């Protein structure tokens, strides 16, 4: 008979901890090492992501994979690792300092339930930088930056991640006998798991507050904070859920070629500005003109100008058409202007004034008195046998402009519209425009 003896895998290396005598960090790390040995996973597939501060030094005492990044951002790196490789075991070690500066990452990782395990080494102050107060420093506590006693209310880390969806949440101290068991549970939990582990900073918090192990426990009690496993429920792990949701998607985008189906008589570059109101399909109408021009063998560019609030104010599109390719450049004085609303008019008034006799301005009767040096063509949409919705005015007037100036065949517009979105209403607008 043969017996296979698997040697216990090693997670903790030989290097002694660098922490001050009595510092809680070392005891928690011993418990982590015990927990990893219990689970018995390949150390190379365990990634310890350490934050900054004394707690952030931790990864160097482990023979696992390690990522030591920036202050407060450990959860973001851990999230990236887990999203890329869900099969890896990702453990974050962060101080209460890191929890404060990176609070938003904590909340959002909990909310998403990214399957990482976060150990908060909560010693109630910034150890490494000299004992300043952190977001978890109890009210009244004396620190390097609260010499008269802390006036701020301490953050309840567990409640914060718990109410926001975290799968597993535990609060305890570095002295808890069952800590390694709880770490095992947390690592085995598929979702976001957090252990808020209170401990002593013997260099700063302890001397400044005559603090003891008993003090840790009584402070937790005084603040009315519960201990033990506070939240534990089944959740869908984010990286796994993402992969499941990605199944059966169509294939990725590829270039969509536009065929040349018509000739254009244009021999020179022609610039066209359409000015209307934001949210009134100015840009999409201009795009159809460009696509139709390409169908007619031309080269088009389209630059848009609009305020950040996409549904109010002006919307301006500059379309430049020509027989040869050209880089997009600014249009100062266009050859053709199409004005369909007061918002648009306000924006292009100086442009219209600068236009000369060779230019043409297309507009509606409402703006028939516009000041311009260009030839004015007033088109009355009410003359159309069909009712023209306001949002189609741009396309109607653009079609009229294309037809009257003979830039390219209107059939090219029809084809472009038929191949695109909202085909039916756009085709109706083009029909109306060519009839006016």
């Amino acid at each position, binding site marked *: 008979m043969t017996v296979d003896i698997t040697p216990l895998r090693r997670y903790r290396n030989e290097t002694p901890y660098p922490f001050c005598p009595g510092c809680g960090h070392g005891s928690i790390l011993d418990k982590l090492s015990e927990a990893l040995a219990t689970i018995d996973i390949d150390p190379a597939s365990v990634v310890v992501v350490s934050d900054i501060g004394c707690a952030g030094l931790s990864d160097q005492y482990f023979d696992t994979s390690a990522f030591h990044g920036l202050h407060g951002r450990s959860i973001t*790196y851990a999230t990236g690792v887990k999203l890329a490789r869900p099969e890896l075991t990702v453990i974050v070690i962060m101080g209460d300092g890191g929890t404060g500066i990176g609070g938003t990452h904590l909340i959002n990782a909990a909310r998403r339930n990214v399957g990482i395990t976060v150990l908060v080494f909560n010693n109630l102050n910034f150890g490494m930088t000299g004992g300043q107060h952190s977001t978890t420093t109890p009210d009244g506590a004396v620190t390097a930056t609260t010499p008269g006693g802390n006036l701020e209310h301490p953050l309840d880390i567990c409640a914060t991640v718990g109410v926001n969806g975290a799968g597993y949440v535990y609060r305890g101290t570095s002295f808890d006998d069952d800590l390694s068991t709880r770490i095992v549970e947390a690592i085995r939990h598929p979702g976001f798991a957090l252990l808020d582990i209170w401990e002593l900073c013997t260099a700063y918090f302890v001397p400044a507050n005559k603090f003891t192990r008993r003090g840790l426990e009584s402070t937790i009690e005084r603040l009315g904070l519960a201990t033990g496993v506070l939240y534990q429920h089944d959740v869908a792990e984010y990286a796994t859920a993402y992969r499941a949701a990605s199944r059966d998607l169509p294939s990725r985008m590829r270039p969509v070629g536009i065929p040349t189906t018509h000739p254009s008589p244009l021999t020179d570059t022609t610039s066209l500005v359409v000015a209307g109101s934001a949210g009134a399909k100015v840009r999409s109408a201009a795009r159809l003109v460009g696509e139709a021009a390409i169908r007619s063998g031309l080269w088009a560019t389209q630059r848009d100008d609009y305020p950040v609030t996409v549904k109010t104010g002006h919307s301006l599109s500059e379309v430049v058409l020509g027989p040869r390719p050209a880089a*997009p450049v600014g249009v100062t004085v266009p050859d053709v202007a199409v004005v369909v609303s007061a918002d648009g008019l306000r924006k292009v008034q100086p442009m219209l004034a600068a236009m000369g006799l060779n230019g043409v301005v297309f507009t509606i009767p409402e703006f028939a008195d516009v000041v311009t040096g260009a030839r004015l063509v007033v088109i009355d949409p009410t003359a159309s046998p069909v009712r023209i919705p306001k949002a189609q005015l741009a396309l109607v007037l653009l079609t009229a402009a294309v037809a009257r100036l003979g830039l390219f065949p209107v059939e090219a517009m029809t084809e472009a519209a038929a191949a695109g979105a909202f085909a039916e209403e756009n085709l109706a607008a083009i029909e109306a425009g060519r009839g006016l």
Partner: protein
Amino acid sequence: MREYIDGSTAIVRGALDAGCTFFAGYPITPASGILMAMMRELPKVGGVAIQGEDEIASIGMCIGATLAGSRAMTATSGPGISLYSENIGLAVMGEVPLVIVDVQRLGPSTGGATTVSQGDVQFVRWGTGGGFPIIALAPSTVTESYWLTAKAFDLAERFRCPVFVVTDKELATTLTTVDLESYPTIQVRDREVGSGGPPYRYAPADEVAPLHEFGRGATVRFTGSTHDTGGYITKHLPTVDALNRHLSEKIEDHRDEIELADADLEDGAPTLVIGYGVTGGAVRAAVAEARRRGIRVSGLVVQSLWPIPETVIRRAMEGVDRVVVPELNLGLYRREVERIAAGRSVVGVNRVDGELIDVDQIVEAVT
């Protein structure tokens, strides 16, 4: 056949063709188009895209994912680059391949969200502490947006560092007609992956060690602190010195592999116009127009902004006594050109009102 496409779409396609498998970003005009397209497209190719809770999280996730084997990209605009700053340093220090797209808008601060600018050219160069070299590419057309993005992925792997693609509101959102045949194929090198042994190497100083990824059989240590080749924090003077020289020399000693510019030089022309990014289009048009008017002039559109392509610029300056540098800022790149121009007169054509530089403005400066 031709297509009607904007620069954002070209960047996304360039990234997908270069093998990008991870994207994280936070919405910001005018870079949101890239985020939305990546959210839609990446899961289709087996990749992962996520909207981070902020820009710090987004670039952090990209760095984590890269160490776990992904090829990552993120995209933002000036305000987001500000938030990337500390993590750019982490990527430099930890030698993380990563592509960062900056779709410039008018700054400072929130500035003009929908307004074009080239105000970030020095910001991307010096956007993190420490003063180490940065690679930045600047497309001037949609086609270049495509292939320079792919090139950025290639250079990121070659040099194990973050590489910027610096574009702007106009290039990213302007629709342009592009001949489908005109897209060049960029060979993006496979990642050289190391396993076992120290994850870093500092000698020879200019050489780049293969990237050690998590979960490939051996343990891997990664750190943003000053570290030895094993990834352990160190204050050992010779090691610290070797690390810092390595971070610089791996790029500085190989600038010839990065230099990219589109030169249109005319023999004996007394004037050279140097532009980059969206202004490059106006430079090309102005050179053509000036020549049509009988003026002898050369044009140079810089595609690799950083490190500044000194060799090509020097060559283009031979026999030239006047250099014109149009840009959508108050002369941020001009000062770099002045350093190389050695006594030649260097004039700027600058615009910061949020409009593009007019071709005529450049022609005027040339005459």
